[in-house]
């Protein structure tokens, strides 16, 4: 079953087409989410949400962009929404803790260890992922899609619905921001 046929079958509500879609794109969606939220369980939740959204709104896919672009767009948007919700929860937990509740226990920020990184690069990658959390969302998305998903600038521009120049500018700003964050981190932690 080729991609246009798969989409047609999905639009007709074919269950086997949905199974095939999940099989084909689960790694792409999961890894995009994982790169953004840096939590395996959260990325798994987001992956489920993305496929449910695809199932529910496949009729709105008109084929103006590539299907993978549309899917990336949903994954990125869901991952960012998830992060916002988590930040709200963290703030609420902090307020709860002020009033003697156990809100602080609801969020456990842990250092991210991406399973796809080579063993000898784990430490450097942990510093990179820590720095990624500190930079603005749009810079982070561009960097993540490029470095982790191997997407080109043109594809990233389509996913983010922006121009090629904007993506190039965001990428260069992302690198500068990351360098600054990493420099600050190493200045504090290297004696």
């Amino acid at each position, binding site marked *: 079953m080729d991609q246009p046929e798969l989409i047609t079958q999905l639009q007709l509500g074919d269950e086997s087409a949905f199974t095939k879609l999940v099989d084909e794109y*689960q790694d792409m969606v999961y890894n995009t989410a994982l790169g953004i939220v840096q939590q395996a369980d959260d990325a798994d939740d987001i992956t489920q949400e993305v496929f449910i959204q695809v199932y529910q709104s496949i009729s709105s896919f008109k084929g103006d962009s590539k299907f993978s672009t549309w899917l990336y767009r949903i994954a990125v948007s869901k991952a960012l929404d998830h992060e916002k919700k988590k930040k709200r929860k963290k703030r609420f937990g902090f307020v709860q803790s002020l009033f003697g509740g156990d809100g602080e226990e609801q969020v456990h920020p842990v250092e991210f260890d991406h399973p796809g990184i080579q063993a000898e690069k784990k430490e450097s990658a942990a510093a990179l992922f820590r720095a990624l959390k500190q930079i603005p969302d749009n810079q982070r998305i561009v960097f993540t899609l490029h470095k982790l998903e191997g997407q080109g600038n043109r594809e990233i521009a389509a996913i983010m619905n922006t121009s090629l120049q904007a993506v190039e500018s965001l990428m260069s700003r992302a690198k500068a921001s990351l360098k600054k964050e990493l420099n600050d981190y190493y200045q504090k932690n290297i004696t």
Partner: protein
Amino acid sequence: MNKQEDINKLIDDALNSADDIKRAAVKPFLLTRIHARMNKGKESLWEKAGWLIGRPAVAFTGLCMIILINITVVLVNKPSAADYAVERSSQQQVDEFSYTVATIYEIDNTQQNDK
């Protein structure tokens, strides 16, 4: 090599650490979990409605609308001076031409007096 040079090397290493990254594997039975979640979503329609109504913005807007409707109803139905005059004159007419019905108590007393 001084400290800043060490740091610069560490920064370059960190930026290049994700260059040959491999994709992480998804936990097994993703499709089963998706189906379970879809079915759960279908069951909790009332929960969704409750969640929507319970949102502060929606609840506050609803409350404001109820108060506004109440105020409007009170203001629209407030009797004017003319209505009051009509009501008063009709009450006077009723009083003037009313037929007073004797109570059982008065009838009983009258019968006893006759005896």
